[in-house]
C-alpha cells in the first residue's frame, strides 16, 4: 500500500475512534435514542390496546417507525459540537479526502444508534408479541436499513448544522427520503411473519444501502462546505 492509502486508512480509524470516545463521554447523546425507542414501544400498548393479536399485527411497522424516529432524533448532534468548537473547519481544511472522514463519522453514529437499536429490537418485538418467525426478518431488515437512515440523515444534519434550530428542518429534508426504507423494512418483517420469501426486500434494502454508501458521503461533504462557508 502506498503512504497515501495508509494515511487515509489512519484518518478513517482515528476519526472513528474519536467519535466513539466522544459519544461515550457525552453519555446522554448515547442513551437518548435508545430510551426514546424504548418509551415509544412501551407506551404504545398502554395507549392503544394490550390485545396480543392486535399488537402482533402492528409490531413490524411500529418498531420500524420508532427506530426511524429515534435515528432522526440523534442526527442533530452528528456535526453540531464539531461545528461549534471549530473542529469542522479543521476537517474541511484537511488535504485528505472528505469522503472518508464523513464515512467514519457516520459509521460511528450508526454503531451508536442503528446497531444499538437493532440489538434491542428483539426485546421490543417480544413485548409487542411479534411472532418468532418474524425475528430474523426484523433483525436483518434493521441491520440493512438503519445504516441507510444514518447515511441519508447525515446529509440533512450537514445542511442544517449552521442553523440555530435545525432539528425540525432535518426532519422535513430527510423524512421523504426515509420512506422507501421504512416501506421495504416493515414489509420485510410482514413477509417474514407470513412466511413469504424475503430475498426481494433484502435486495432492495441492500440496493438502497449501496446507493447511500456511494453518494451520501459526497453530498454530506458538499453540504458541510456550504454550511461552514456561509
Amino acid at each position: 500500500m502506498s503512504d497515501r492509502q495508509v494515511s487515509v486508512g489512519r484518518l478513517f480509524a482515528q476519526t472513528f475512534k474519536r467519535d466513539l470516545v466522544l459519544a461515550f463521554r457525552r453519555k446522554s447523546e448515547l442513551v437518548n435514542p435508545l430510551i426514546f425507542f424504548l418509551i415509544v414501544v412501551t407506551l404504545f400498548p398502554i395507549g392503544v390496546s394490550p390485545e396480543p393479536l392486535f399488537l402482533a399485527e402492528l409490531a413490524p411497522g411500529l418498531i420500524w417507525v420508532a427506530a426511524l424516529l429515534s435515528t432522526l432524533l440523534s442526527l442533530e448532534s452528528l456535526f453540531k459540537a464539531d461545528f461549534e468548537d471549530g473542529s469542522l473547519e479543521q476537517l474541511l481544511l484537511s488535504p485528505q479526502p472528505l469522503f472518508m472522514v464523513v464515512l467514519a463519522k457516520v459509521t460511528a453514529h450508526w454503531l451508536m444508534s442503528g446497531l444499538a437499536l437493532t440489538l434491542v429490537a428483539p426485546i421490543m418485538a417480544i413485548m409487542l408479541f411479534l411472532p418468532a418467525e418474524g425475528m430474523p426478518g426484523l433483525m436483518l431488515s434493521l441491520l440493512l436499513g438503519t445504516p441507510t437512515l444514518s447515511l441519508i440523515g447525515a446529509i440533512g444534519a450537514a445542511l442544517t448544522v449552521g442553523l440555530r434550530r435545525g432539528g425540525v428542518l432535518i426532519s422535513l429534508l430527510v423524512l421523504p427520503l426515509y420512506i422507501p426504507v421504512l416501506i421495504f423494512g416493515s414489509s420485510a418483517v410482514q413477509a417474514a411473519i407470513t412466511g413469504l420469501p424475503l430475498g426481494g426486500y433484502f435486495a432492495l434494502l441492500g440496493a438502497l444501502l449501496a446507493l447511500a454508501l456511494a453518494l451520501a458521503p459526497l453530498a454530506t461533504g458538499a453540504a458541510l462546505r456550504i454550511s461552514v462557508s456561509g
Partner: protein
Amino acid sequence: MGAELLRAKSLYCERDDRVLFENLDLQLNTGEILQIEGRNGSGKTTLLRILSGLSNNYEGEIFWCGETLGEAKEAFLAELVYIGHQPGVSAQLTAEENLSWQCALHPSLDNSKIGYAIAQVGLKGFEDVPSYQLSAGQKRRIALARLYMSSAKLWILDEPFTAIDKLGVAAKEALMLKHLSQGGSVILTTHQDLSDSMPVRTLSLGKPQTEVAYE
C-alpha cells in the same frame, strides 16, 4: 525578498449588504509576516477564512504559488495550518487526543512530536485532562501546539494570542521567527502589538471610520 506564496487579486466581499472590502490586493512571500489590522467587524476573520479557502463568499482571485486556489487546492491545504476563531479543540477530549486527530487530518503535522509540542506549550501534566476542565488560555494553547509539530509553509492565525499570557506570546513569537527562517510565512490578526523585532507588514482593513461617541 522571498518567493511568492500567496497572492490575492481584487478581492471583493460583502456581508449583510455591507461591503467589507473591495479591490483588495495582497501578496505574501516566504519569510514574511502579514498582520491584518482593522476595527472589530471590519472583516479580518472573513478575509482569513477566504484566504484559507473556507469561505467562497467573495469575488476575485487567489493564487497559491502562481496557480489559482481552485487548481492547487490540495497542494495548498497540505501546506496550511489554520487556527481559527474557534480553535478546533473538542472539549470532551484531552490535549493528546485532540492533537492526534489533528495529525490524522493534516499529514503536515508530525505525529511523533505530540509529546514535545504539549511540553512546549506548557501543558505537561495536563495530557490526560479533558479540555473542558482547562482554562481558556490552556485550550488555545492546545490549538497552538499544532504549530510546534507543523512542517507547513503557511500559517493563518486568527487572534492566536487571545487569552495567552505574555511568556506564551513571547514563545510563539520566537517560534514564528524560526518558521520564517525556514522559508515559511504567517498571516495573522491580533489586537496585541507584536514585539518590534518581528518583521511584520501590516494591511489595514476598513475605511477610517469616525468614532461615534454615544456617551
